[in-house]
């Protein structure tokens, strides 16, 4: 059983119910919630040594707006309070949160809300200066501006929780009897977002949506009704709903989520429909791969996921047919198969309600991921046409650009470090602040690798870090996206590490492999890397020798590596 994430709840109201929901929730990651002393937010944030921070992996700092910025209390009482004074209090509060970074891996900060029954002053509420809602919006905007770029701090939208809970989001009786600011419906929604956030920081988000076709992407059976007979778009409420569902899927591809198809259908008819139907939003280039045939869907999913170099746990399967969903759930428990509504008009909202795709940030690599898989299809087509592997590797014209860890690369490098499972030497997980801090330490060096070839740009796909010890250098991280395995990038990364270590005096460099259930590809690579395997999981290279880069790749420097001596 994996270790529970210890989550500290810091609040100016009673969060015992939130704590209970977080701890009892069966979804991953498992959380052991602990509460900081009641109503001691400021002292706890100020005190680096407060006992409650000890052993905590993450924290949630959830406050009421008038407690964090006392002048807002005057606005609630319809007294005058200068807007700049309120925003200054927001700035001061933001500084306190920033100062707590580093005590835990991650701090989640829900935005400020007021109870929905607080209608306050009607239209006056939106006026600048005295309006409650106007002031609250400005406070939240300021809070976001202050914290959004701080590594390790993530804001959560509490207003969504309130909206879901509706008129019962806050119950005055809960407040007067227990100092509980929100109803349990709000806390349950908060748990969903906190867990989604914890999964996002751990890189455990889903990467692939596999969809069925008939009655999932369009209405009707294309094999029976033909392309012109399916329900898609047009002046029809069901047709419109399918178009909107496709739009929502397309939006996810822009966030870096891959799309795949597994459908029992005639492939030729299905592909023709996707390519030619005038109302299709999704086209073939939007799909990273497909299996359209009459075989078992579970087997097709396994094949498709393997083709895309992903793990089954990265996949979500959406199918209108409950029997197919049950079959996949039973055969492939690692694949997430959400319950799916029978009503086609709520497909889009069902998709939007899934919290398994949450990410900490979006990088340029995310936006071109689908395109990258389309390029990979072309590579494979060419590979099958060229008989020799060596000739094919030469024909790809692979270019590798190595550089240090810049602030621009930090989000993507952290994402790669936390999401990569297969080619990952130690599976070390760190937040942005921790990674940046580690790389800046004396004796540490970290490089990021970008790769492109004649078919397209993979973006930032590799990380190597080295720690110089007295007589030896250690490869601490060796992380590479599965999309470029076996293309000579691995050897180029080792060459960079070896060159740096050689210039830093040690006579030898080594890599210590830490096994996980998923990183055997990394062990397999090191076994054939030319490094000397001295024990089961340790590989050494004598720095008197140069580590060679394959002739079919070109390695270029982007800039100076992040390194200190």
């Amino acid at each position: 059983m994996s270790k529970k994430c210890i989550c500290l709840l810091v609040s100016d109201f009673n969060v015992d119910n939130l704590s209970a929901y977080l701890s009892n929730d069966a979804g991953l990651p498992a959380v052991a919630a602990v509460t900081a002393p009641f109503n001691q937010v400021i002292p706890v944030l100020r005190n680096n040594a407060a006992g409650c921070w000890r052993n905590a992996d993450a924290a949630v700092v959830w406050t009421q707006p008038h407690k964090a910025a006392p002048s807002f209390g005057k606005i609630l009482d319809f007294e005058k309070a200068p807007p700049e004074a309120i925003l200054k209090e927001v700035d001061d509060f933001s500084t306190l949160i920033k100062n707590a970074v580093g005590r835990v891996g991650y701090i989640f900060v829900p935005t400020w809300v007021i109870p929905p029954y607080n209608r306050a002053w009607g239209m006056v509420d939106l006026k600048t200066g005295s309006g409650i809602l106007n002031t609250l919006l400005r406070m939240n905007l300021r809070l976001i501006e202050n914290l959004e770029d701080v590594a390790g701090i993530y804001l959560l939208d509490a207003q969504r929780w309130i909206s879901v809970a509706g008129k019962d989001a806050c119950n005055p009786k809960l407040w007067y009897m227990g100092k509980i600011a929100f109803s349990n419906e709000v806390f349950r929604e908060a748990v969903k977002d906190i867990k989604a956030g914890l999964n996002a920081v751990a890189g455990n988000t889903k990467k692939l949506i596999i969809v069925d076709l008939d009655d999932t992407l369009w209405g009707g059976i294309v094999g029976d009704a033909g392309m012109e007979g399916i329900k898609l778009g047009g002046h029809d409420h069901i047709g419109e709903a399918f178009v909107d569902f496709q739009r929502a899927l397309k939006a996810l591809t822009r966030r870096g989520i891959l799309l795949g198809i597994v459908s029992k259908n005639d492939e030729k008819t299905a592909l023709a429909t996707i390519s030619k139907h005038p109302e299709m939003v999704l086209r073939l280039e939007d799909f990273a791969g497909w299996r359209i045939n009459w075989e078992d869907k579970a087997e097709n999913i396994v094949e498709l996921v393997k083709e895309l170099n992903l793990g089954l746990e990265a996949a979500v399967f959406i199918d209108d047919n409950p029997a197919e969903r049950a079959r996949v759930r039973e055969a492939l428990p690692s694949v997430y198969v959400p319950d799916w509504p029978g009503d086609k008009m709520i497909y889009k909202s069902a998709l939007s309600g899934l919290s398994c795709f949450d990410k900490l940030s979006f990088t340029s690599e995310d936006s071109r991921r689908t395109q990258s898989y389309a390029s990979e299809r072309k590579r494979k087509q060419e590979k099958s046409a060229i008989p020799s592997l060596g000739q094919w590797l030469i024909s790809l014209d692979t270019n590798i650009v190595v550089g240090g860890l810049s602030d621009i690369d930090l989000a993507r490098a952290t994402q790669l470090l936390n999401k990569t499972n297969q080619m990952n030497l130690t599976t070390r997980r760190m937040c942005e602040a921790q990674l940046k801090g580690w790389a800046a330490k004396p004796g540490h060096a970290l490089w990021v690798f970008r790769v492109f070839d004649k078919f397209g740009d993979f973006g930032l796909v590799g990380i190597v870090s080295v720690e110089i010890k007295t007589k030896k250098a250690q490869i601490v991280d060796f992380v590479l996206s599965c999309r470029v395995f076996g293309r000579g990038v691995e050897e180029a990364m080792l060459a960079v590490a070896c060159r740096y270590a050689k210039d830093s005096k040690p006579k030898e460099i080594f890599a210590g492999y830490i096994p996980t259930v998923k990183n055997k590809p990394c062990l397999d690579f090191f076994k054939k890397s030319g490094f000397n395997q001295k024990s089961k999981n340790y590989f050494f290279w004598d720095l008197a020798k140069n580590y060679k880069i394959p002739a079919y790749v070109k390695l270029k420097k982007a800039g100076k590596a992040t390194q200190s001596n």
Partner: protein
Amino acid sequence: MEKIKQKKIIEAVFSAIDEVNQLLPTAQRLKKSVNTALFDKSGKDGLDSLGLINFVIALEQEIVKKLKVTVALADERAMLQKINPFTTVKTLTVYIARLTEGDGS
């Protein structure tokens, strides 16, 4: 009629137990039975004070849903009863039946 009402009250109490059980560790979860102890001052049986607050709020909402009436369960009337209405599920259902008749004394 009375039987239907009684059934609805018990359903409301059991729904509130479901709600509050989500907040409790498995070993402390309440059974859905008329003899289940809900609260005693010693804290030995049933819910603690926070658990009782959650239970009362959940139950008030369930009564609105199932009986279409609004009741205040946590007020001085409850404290004035010879037998604490929150002793067991049974004492509570009797108390709610009286409250919803307009007789809380």
